């Protein structure tokens, strides 16, 4: 019998079923001619025999196929009555069996769409039935999809944001009309040749979800569901968890999809890993979106991140709120940040008028990063600067300078990240955000300035000192963490009207400091009077105080006698006036040192020390501040005839094992203090001082050499003094 059923003589396996039942074949192997096939045939017939194609969907004559997706085919057709082109989509229910319920819902949605008119939504002209299927006749948009637009050439984040905000407006308008898109993705956003942005294909994914609910939650199997509905990874990549689970889908699901698409467009990668349908589900259940890297503003990321929340309740209340956050953060910043003095209001008006970004935006949105300031090329240039010399300390100094700059850069970047990705902009927050931004911005400019000083053409006579000083200076960069001290940064922030000048001046004042650290007080002296003059003219008290403080400190260092005193008094007064507690505390400490060392007045020194201490208590002293204070206290105690060791040991405790220049100084002071009474302990501390100095400055650094020589001489005699003058 098998041969009888194989008239062609082939002996195909499995064909030899002579007893094959004549049962009804429940599906037809040969595919029935599809609509597209019929269209192609009609078109070929028209060309061969001149018979005009009569293939129509409703009253629209079909021209050619525009595209095809999971939900149906789209044809370019002609509306002959109105003589215009239309895009006609034949919408499919799942599989062959378009259930009545789905079709009803689809018709309902289609009618709602037809009522919706918005510049960012592809207009649905009419809907109807064709061969048992719902069709939609829509506005024909001559252009490209957002996907194509993004792929065509590199786009700036501003351009991208602009397109997405426009698309978002369309989406939001649909939401207000009670329509959920359910399948928002760049493929469904059309960019016209006129630049218009329109969202298409609303609500048409509905039919898929409808079917799921009939199977009940127990029948849930994500992979088969996704396959059956024709969804592929390209579609699930935009779906939120609730949609993947087959749960309730609403406007907030669109918001999630919108944010995934925007994230991908801005950062060039997916916010969640995308391996398989099941893998994606697990990822969404467990993970937060990946922190993006890219030029796009951190404040934009903050907005997107909320839209990507796993729980719909944690997303933005609606899409308009999200869009307002994307558009309106600049306005919010102005409203909240600049209310105060008349100058501030004037600044706000100016800002509004020009649309200039504020400090926060410059820092967070416009790529104010350490690129070009402390990056690989700059790092190599600094390294080369040391390597070109043959000073014994150069290799050790180089390594420490690089490491300290690296540390600063890391902390600075962390602070920036923390500030820029902070969650909320409360009414009062923008002022603080601005002040913190300005603080970080100064830190950045200061690093740039210091690196610049190092890379200057070397002054050969002083070069060894400069490079040794670089290590000292690199230890004295202000901790970027201080920019998180809200009270302080608010006090120091200049009014917007003088913001730019104030920042430049601030960096110049810091230049005086850094030149002093680099062992070039001579150069600082030349610059100090013009700097003071500029500060006076600008009149921003915290900066006047800082300039006077530098002048006093410089005088103290160059000529440590009487001229320093009135300068200190002025500087302290200004610092207190400007409520700059850090500065007050530091100046009081220096004053106590000065008075104890040079004037030998224990009572006055003690008073200064007490005020410095209470100021530090208020502002919060770090380990190094405490260590320095302890050192001064030991001087004051010794001056009054007491034992300095307890204070010095307390200072070492305060350092908590951290490698800091103060460790060397304190051990040195202890060696000094114990030299007469307990020579063995003194030698121990002397050795610890050398080891600490080696740590922070390097083995061949001049400061370390000083400690080592003193240790040597202490081993032979008992007369030399240990303690280098504290700053």
């Amino acid at each position, binding site marked *: 019998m098998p041969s009888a*059923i194989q*008239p062609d003589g082939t002996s195909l396996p499995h064909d030899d*079923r002579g007893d*094959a039942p004549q049962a009804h074949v429940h599906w037809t*192997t040969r595919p029935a001619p599809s609509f597209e096939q019929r269209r192609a*045939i009609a*078109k*070929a017939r028209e060309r061969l*025999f001149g018979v005009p194609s009569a293939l129509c969907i409703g009253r629209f004559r079909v021209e050619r196929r525009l595209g095809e997706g999971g939900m149906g085919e789209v044809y370019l057709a002609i509306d002959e009555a109105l003589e215009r082109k239309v895009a006609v989509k034949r919408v499919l229910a799942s599989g062959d069996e378009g259930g009545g319920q789905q079709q009803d819902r689809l018709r309902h949605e289609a009618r709602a769409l037809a009522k919706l008119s918005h510049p960012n939504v592809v207009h649905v002209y009419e809907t109807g039935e064709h061969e048992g299927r719902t069709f939609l006749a829509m506005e024909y948009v001559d252009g490209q999809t957002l996907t194509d637009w993004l792929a065509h050439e590199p786009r700036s984040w501003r351009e991208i944001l602009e397109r997405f905000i426009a698309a978002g407006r369309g989406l939001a308008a649909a939401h207000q009309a009670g329509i959920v898109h359910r399948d928002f993705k760049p493929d469904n956003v059309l960019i016209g040749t006129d630049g218009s942005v329109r969202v298409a294909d609303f609500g048409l994914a509905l039919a898929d979800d409808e079917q799921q609910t009939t199977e009940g939650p127990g029948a849930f199997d994500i992979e088969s569901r996704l396959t059956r509905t024709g969804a592929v990874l390209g579609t699930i990549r935009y779906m939120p968890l609730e949609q993947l689970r087959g749960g309730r889908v609403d406007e907030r699901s669109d918001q999630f999809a919108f944010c995934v698409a925007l994230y991908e467009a801005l950062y060039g990668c997916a916010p969640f890993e995308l391996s398989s349908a099941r893998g994606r589900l697990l990822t969404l259940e467990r993970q937060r979106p990946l922190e993006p890297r890219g030029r796009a503003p951190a404040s934009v990321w903050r907005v997107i991140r909320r839209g990507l929340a796993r729980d719909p309740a944690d997303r933005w209340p609606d899409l308009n709120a999200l869009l307002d956050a994307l558009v309106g953060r600049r306005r919010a910043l102005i409203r909240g940040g600049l209310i105060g003095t008349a100058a501030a209001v004037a600044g706000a008006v100016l800002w509004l008028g020009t649309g200039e970004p504020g400090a926060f935006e410059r820092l967070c949105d416009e790529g104010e990063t350490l690129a070009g300031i402390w990056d690989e090329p700059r790092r190599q240039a600094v390294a080369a600067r040391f390597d070109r010399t043959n000073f014994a300390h150069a290799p050790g100094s180089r390594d420490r300078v690089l490491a300290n700059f690296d540390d600063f850069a890391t902390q600075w970047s962390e602070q920036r990240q923390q500030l820029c990705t902070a969650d909320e902009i409360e009414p009062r927050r923008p002022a603080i955000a601005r002040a913190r931004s300005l603080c970080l911005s100064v830190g950045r400019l200061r690093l740039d300035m210091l690196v610049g000083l190092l890379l200057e053409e070397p002054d050969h006579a002083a070069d060894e000192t400069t490079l040794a000083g670089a290590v000292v200076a690199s230890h004295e960069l202000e901790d970027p963490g201080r920019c998180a001290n809200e009270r302080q940064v608010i006090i120091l922030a200049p009014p917007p009207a003088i913001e730019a000048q104030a920042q430049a001046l601030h960096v110049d004042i810091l230049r005086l400091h850094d030149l002093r650290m680099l062992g070039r007080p001579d150069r600082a002296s030349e610059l100090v009077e013009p700097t003071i003059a500029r500060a006076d003219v600008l009149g921003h008290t915290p900066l006047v105080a800082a300039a006077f403080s530098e002048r006093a400190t410089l005088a103290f260092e160059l000529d440590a006698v009487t001229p320093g005193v009135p300068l200190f008094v002025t500087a302290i007064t200004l610092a207190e006036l400007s409520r700059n507690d850090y500065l007050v505390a530091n100046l009081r400490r220096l004053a106590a040192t000065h008075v104890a060392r040079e004037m030998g007045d224990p009572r006055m020194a003690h008073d200064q020390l007490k005020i410095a201490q209470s100021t530090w208590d208020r502002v919060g002293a770090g380990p190094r501040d405490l260590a320095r204070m302890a050192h001064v206290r030991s001087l004051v105690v010794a001056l009054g005839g007491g034992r300095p060791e307890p204070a010095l040991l307390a200072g070492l405790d305060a350092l908590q094992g951290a490698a800091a220049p103060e460790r060397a100084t304190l051990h040195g002071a202890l060696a000094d203090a114990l030299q007469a009474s307990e020579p063995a302990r003194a030698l121990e501390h002397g050795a610890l001082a050398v080891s600490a100095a080696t740590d922070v400055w390097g083995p061949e650094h001049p400061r370390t050499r000083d400690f080592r020589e003193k240790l040597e001489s202490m081993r032979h005699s008992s007369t030399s003094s240990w303690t280098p003058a504290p700053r």
Partner: protein
Amino acid sequence: MTPDWQLDATLLEAWRAGDADAGSRVFERHAEAVARFFENKLRDGSEDLIQVTFLRMVEGRERIREGIVFRAFILGIARNVFREHLRKLVKGREVDPEVDTMSSLVPGPSTMVGRSREQRLLLEGLRQLPMGYQTALELYYWEELDARQIADIMDVSHSAMRSRLVKARELLRDAMAKIAESHELLASTLDGLERWASELRHRVNNE
């Protein structure tokens, strides 16, 4: 020769002599098969290839040899048209029908919409086969041609075509197994395919 063959041959002669009505009738008799031949291989533009196929048939001088099924004749032309189109599509790259698959040459969905799950699986499975195998199977299942007729279209020997069909079915089963969402779907698709083939053979045999 069958009356069908006689009719097709006569109509073609008339069309070649300028009778558009006769041409129109030939077209209506075979356009669907030609369209089907292209459909699962191309995303767009099959109307062009349909047109070229019929034009080439009418402009050709070649007489249909007796013993050649008319459908095999026209599908042979369609195959040539398709191969030329493909060469343009891949911009001069050599296409090896024994190796290259349509899913790799023309990625993206074909006209899958509106089909049953089994049909979608079958269509996608076919697209995963090297072209020569895909074409052979489609002709075998859909155009109801036998191995000898398919061999004529594809310019291979009868025996080579027989072993190729065996191989093609193995490949198809493997390809579908890889992409099937469930074992049940694969089973029902394969079962349907075999029953179809079997029923077909019965019918032909009983005629």
